[in-house]
């Protein structure tokens, strides 16, 4: 070899994966709080899930702004004279802001005990919450030159990941509420299963893709990233908790919480490895 190249940096650092993680949980927790108006089992989560969702929304916003190299200019993203609607980031900025505004309104209506308004805001907020993982998925998927990212799966995968991680956090807030734990276990099982199915397709299409995809597959399934993606993300953080939830122990509170912990670790590992995995090969071009 003896080649010479300029070594390019990965544009998006791992901080983005923490953002994906926290915003996904925030969105799902809002959804759980909203559900409480329509499903009695979720009643105990109404305020606790909402408060945690709001804290995580603030943390996510700060993470996102902190990662800009010009943080003070973050308001440019909502300047109508600048907004470029062909960019998913522009949609994301609007989605985040409107979700924040609806969250604040929801808080006041809840405090006032205005049930009719709270119910309406719960639905509106849930729709906006759904937009958050969808737009983060689009953030990645629109880059046609990036292996792993550029697949129609990404927005749906992020929605499923958001539900898994959100239900996992909610199960820590649920305490000993039997009926609620049953529901959360169901959500974790179904969305965890969806994540697993999508990961299998993702691995298949990546392994059988072109040069960039194939090389990315090799990076993501070996070495340190392989340990994080396959070891922590898929085996420990997706397959193991699903099996655990299916086992008799997985129907008890302890089992659900252990599975939730594993799903959270796995959710973070998957987001990290997908974010980094899509950028490795390009640094050599």
């Amino acid at each position, binding site marked *: *070899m*003896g*080649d*010479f*190249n*300029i*070594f*390019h*940096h990965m*544009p*998006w650092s791992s901080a983005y994966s923490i953002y994906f993680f926290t915003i996904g949980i925030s969105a799902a927790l809002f959804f759980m709080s909203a559900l409480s108006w329509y499903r009695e089992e979720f009643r105990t989560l109404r305020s606790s899930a909402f408060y945690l969702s709001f804290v995580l929304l603030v943390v996510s916003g700060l993470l996102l702004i902190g*990662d*800009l*190299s*010009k943080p003070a*200019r*973050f308001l*440019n*993203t909502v*300047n109508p004279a*600048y*907004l*470029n609607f*062909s*960019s998913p*980031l*522009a949609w*994301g*900025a609007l989605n985040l802001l409107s979700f924040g505004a609806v969250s604040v309104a929801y808080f006041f209506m809840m405090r006032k005990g205005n049930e009719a308004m709270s119910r309406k805001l719960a639905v509106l907020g849930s729709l906006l919450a759904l937009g958050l993982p969808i737009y983060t998925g689009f*953030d990645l998927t*629109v*880059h*046609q*030159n*990036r292996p792993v990212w550029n697949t129609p799966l990404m927005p749906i995968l992020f929605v499923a990941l958001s539900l898994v991680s959100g239900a996992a956090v909610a199960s820590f807030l649920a305490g000993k509420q039997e009926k609620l734990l049953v529901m959360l276990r169901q959500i974790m099982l179904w969305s965890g299963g969806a994540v697993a199915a999508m990961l299998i397709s993702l691995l298949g299409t990546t392994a059988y893709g072109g*040069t*960039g995809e194939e*090389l990315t597959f*090799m*990076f993501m399934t070996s070495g340190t990233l392989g340990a994080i993606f396959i070891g922590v993300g898929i085996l420990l953080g997706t397959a193991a908790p699903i099996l655990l939830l299916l086992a008799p122990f997985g129907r008890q509170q302890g089992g659900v919480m252990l599975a939730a912990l594993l799903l959270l670790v796995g959710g973070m590992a998957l987001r990290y490895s997908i974010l980094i995995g899509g*950028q490795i*090969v*390009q*640094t*050599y*071009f």
Partner: protein
Amino acid sequence: MSETRLSSSETHGVPGKKRYAMVIDLRRCIGCDACMVACKAEFDVPLGVFRTWVPYKVVGTYPNVRKHFMPRLCNHCEDPPCVRACPVGATYVVEDGGFVLQHYDRCIGCKACMASCPYNARFMLPKSRTYTDITSVVDKCTFCHHRVTQGLSPACVQTCIGRARIFGDINDPASEVSRLVSTLPTQVLRPEEGTKPHVFYIGLDRNTSEFGREVYSRPEVLEEDRQAFNKNHQA
């Protein structure tokens, strides 16, 4: 190159509009890196980042080996993914000429454009610079917009000792770039990305321009090189 027009700013072949392009004749490049130096001087490009760079690959089997140089720069794509990725319109196309440029005062530094460029043509400027106060925003090659609009050629073209870089208006049938692209087989980088690049290579070999399997099983020395490079050239 696909003839479908997707973006409204496409000017290739549009009568009455200029469309600048560069032809790089790889048969003539000797790898002297003068273009890299000229560009650095023209724009005070900081250490560790480049608007144009000349990577090389040693190809062939001993004794039949050669160094394959491949000068690189922004391709001033006709359908640039960087422009559509920018949430605040900080990167834009100058319709008359096809330059893809930056509004430095608008860029928020989200790096979406860097993620979307299939050619690694973009980089982040460091937090502080000695002679220039444009910092912490994304930068890239401008096709020397300030020179070209004054009737000069880009700095890299002007300095190229082998006349490997040729610049001009591809919409003008009498221009040298037009003649070269019309009469010789040329290649653009990664045409499959749908970007319609406007840097045309003569003598480009796809086998050497893409990363191969050696990216995965690269010699340790290359990784050490990479780490040293990253350590010394954090932008």
